[in-house]
C-alpha cells in the first residue's frame, strides 16, 4: 500500500510542479467559465425566478458545480497527458519506468481531481454565500470528489486514445460540451421528452448533478445515482488500466 502511494505520488509530482509553474494561468482558466455561467444563469436570467419551490440560483449553483467538475477535471487531465504523450514524449519515459499501471492512472487523475474540486469548491462557496438554501454536507463533498475522479479518468481515457490534439477537441465538443448543458445542470432532466430523458440518464454527468444537487439542497439522497456514478468511475479506471497494459 505504502509502495503504491509512493508510485501515485511520483506520477502526480510532475503535475503538481506544473501547476506551481503556471498557477495564475490555471487558476483564472478554471474559474472563468463557471463564474460566467453563475452570472448569466444565476443572476442574469434567474434573478427572482423560482424553480421547484426554491430560488433558481439555489437550483442552478449545484448544477454549475457539477459541470465545473466535469469540464475542469476532463480538460486538465486530457490536455496535460495529450501534451506529454504526443508533444513532449515524456509519457513514454513514465511508461518505461517500473511503475504499476494502476498507480499511473490514479496519479495522473490527481491533478484533475485537485483542479476540479478547487474550481467546483469556489463556485460552491459563492453559492453558499449568496443563497441560504444550500448546505455543505459530507455527502456533497463525497459527490463532488467522486465526480472529479470520474471525469478525470474520462479525460485520461480520451488522451490515451487520441491520435492527435484535434481528436481531443472533437471529443470535447461532441460529448463534453453537450453534457455540460443538458445533463440536469441548468434545468431538471425530468422536463425533457421521455426518450431523450432516457438518453441523458446514460450519461455520468446527469447522475453527478443529481447527487450534488440533492446533497446541497438537503433533498432525499439519490443513492442509485451515486452507485451509477461510482460504476462509471470504476469502469473508466479499469478501461484506462487496460489501455495502458495493451495499447501503450
Amino acid at each position, binding site marked *: 500500500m505504502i*509502495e503504491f502511494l*509512493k*508510485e501515485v*505520488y*511520483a506520477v502526480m*509530482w*510532475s503535475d503538481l*510542479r*506544473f501547476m506551481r*509553474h*503556471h498557477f495564475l494561468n490555471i487558476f483564472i482558466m478554471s474559474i472563468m467559465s463557471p463564474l460566467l455561467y453563475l452570472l448569466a444563469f444565476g443572476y442574469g436570467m434567474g434573478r427572482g425566478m423560482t424553480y421547484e419551490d426554491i430560488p433558481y440560483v439555489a437550483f442552478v449553483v449545484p448544477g454549475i458545480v457539477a459541470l465545473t467538475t466535469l469540464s475542469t477535471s476532463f480538460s486538465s487531465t486530457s490536455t496535460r497527458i495529450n*501534451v*506529454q504523450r504526443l508533444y*513532449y*514524449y*515524456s509519457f*513514454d*519515459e*513514465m*511508461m*518505461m*519506468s*517500473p*511503475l504499476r499501471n494502476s498507480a499511473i492512472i490514479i496519479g495522473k487523475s490527481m491533478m484533475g481531481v485537485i483542479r476540479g474540486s478547487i474550481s467546483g469548491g469556489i463556485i460552491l462557496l459563492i453559492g453558499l454565500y449568496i443563497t441560504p438554501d444550500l448546505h455543505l454536507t459530507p455527502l456533497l463533498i463525497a459527490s463532488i470528489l467522486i465526480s472529479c475522479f470520474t471525469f478525470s479518468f474520462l479525460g485520461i481515457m480520451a488522451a490515451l486514445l487520441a491520435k492527435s490534439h484535434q481528436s481531443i477537441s472533437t471529443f470535447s465538443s461532441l460529448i463534453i460540451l453537450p453534457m455540460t448543458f443538458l445533463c440536469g445542470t441548468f434545468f431538471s432532466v425530468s422536463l425533457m421528452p421521455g426518450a431523450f430523458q432516457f438518453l441523458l440518464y446514460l450519461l455520468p454527468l446527469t447522475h453527478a448533478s443529481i447527487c450534488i444537487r440533492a446533497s446541497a439542497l438537503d433533498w432525499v439522497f439519490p443513492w442509485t445515482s451515486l452507485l451509477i456514478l461510482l460504476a462509471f468511475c470504476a469502469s473508466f479506471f479499469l478501461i484506462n488500466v487496460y489501455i495502458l497494459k495493451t495499447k*501503450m
Partner: protein
Amino acid sequence: MENIIEIKGLVKRYDDKVAIDGLDLTVRTGEIFGFLGPNGAGKTTTVRVMSTLADFDCGTVYICGHDIKKDPSKAKACIGMIQQRISLDKDLTIRENMILYSLYHKISSAERRRRIDALSEYIGLTEYMDNMVDTLSGGWKKRAAIVCALIHEPKILFLDEPTVGLDTQARRLLWDIIRRLNNDGTTIFLTTHYIEEAEALCDRVGIINRGKLIDIGPPEDLCSRVGATAVEYFHNGVKTQYRYFQNREEANEFVSTLPEGTTVTVRRTNLEDSFVELTGESVGRVR
C-alpha cells in the same frame, strides 16, 4: 553474465508492414555496440521493443537475463534510455525532470540529491539545473536526458541516434561522455545512421537494413570483409564506381588497366563501403 542483451527471432509488424524481420542479436556486457542502418531500417523500433515501449509479434528478448515479456519491471530497472527525440517534460526545469525520474525509480531523497549532484557535475550541467527545458540548446537537452536516464544506475544505456541534429562540437562532447560512461562500466547500445560515429565509438557494429541484420562485428572486420583497399573511379559521366581489393598492390594493378582520363582515388576501405557492398544501398555520410 556475458551477454547483456539476447534477442532471438524478433518480429515486429505495423499493420501488415514488417518493421523487424526475424532479428537475432546479442550484445556483450561492457561493450559499446552500434546499430547502423539507414532511415527506416528498424533501429528505433528495435530500441523501443527492448525498452518495453513497443510490443512485438514473435521472438524473445532478454535484458540482463530477464525476459522482457515475463518480467518487464526487472528488465526496466536495468535499462536507461535516451530517445531520438528529446523526451523531457518541458513544463519543468532540468532539476525537476531529474527528480521526477528518481521518483519514478523510488530512489530515497538523500540518495536522490547525491546522485543528481554527482551526475550533473559529471555531465557538466550544474549551471543549468534550474533552467526550464526549452531555454537550453539541443546538446544540453541531450545531456540532461542522459542524466535522467542514468539516475537509477542502469547497467545498459540505449541511445537512439544520439547526435542527430547536434553541431560538430556538441557531437564530440557527447562521444566523450559516452566513452567515459562505458569506461565506468555501463554497456552502451547506440543506433546511428552516421557511419563515422559507428567507426569512432563502437567496439562492435551491427548493420541493419529493412528490418534484417546484415552483418555484425568490429568495424575493422566489417571493412576487411569487402577488402582492405577501395578504388573509386569516375569516367565519362558514368556514375562513380567502386572496386575493393585485398591490398594496395592489387588495387594499383587494377588502376593501371583503367582508360586515360579516369578520375581515380585509392584509399582504405571504410564502413560505408562495406555497408554499401553488404546492402546494395548507401547511407548518408557526414563530414
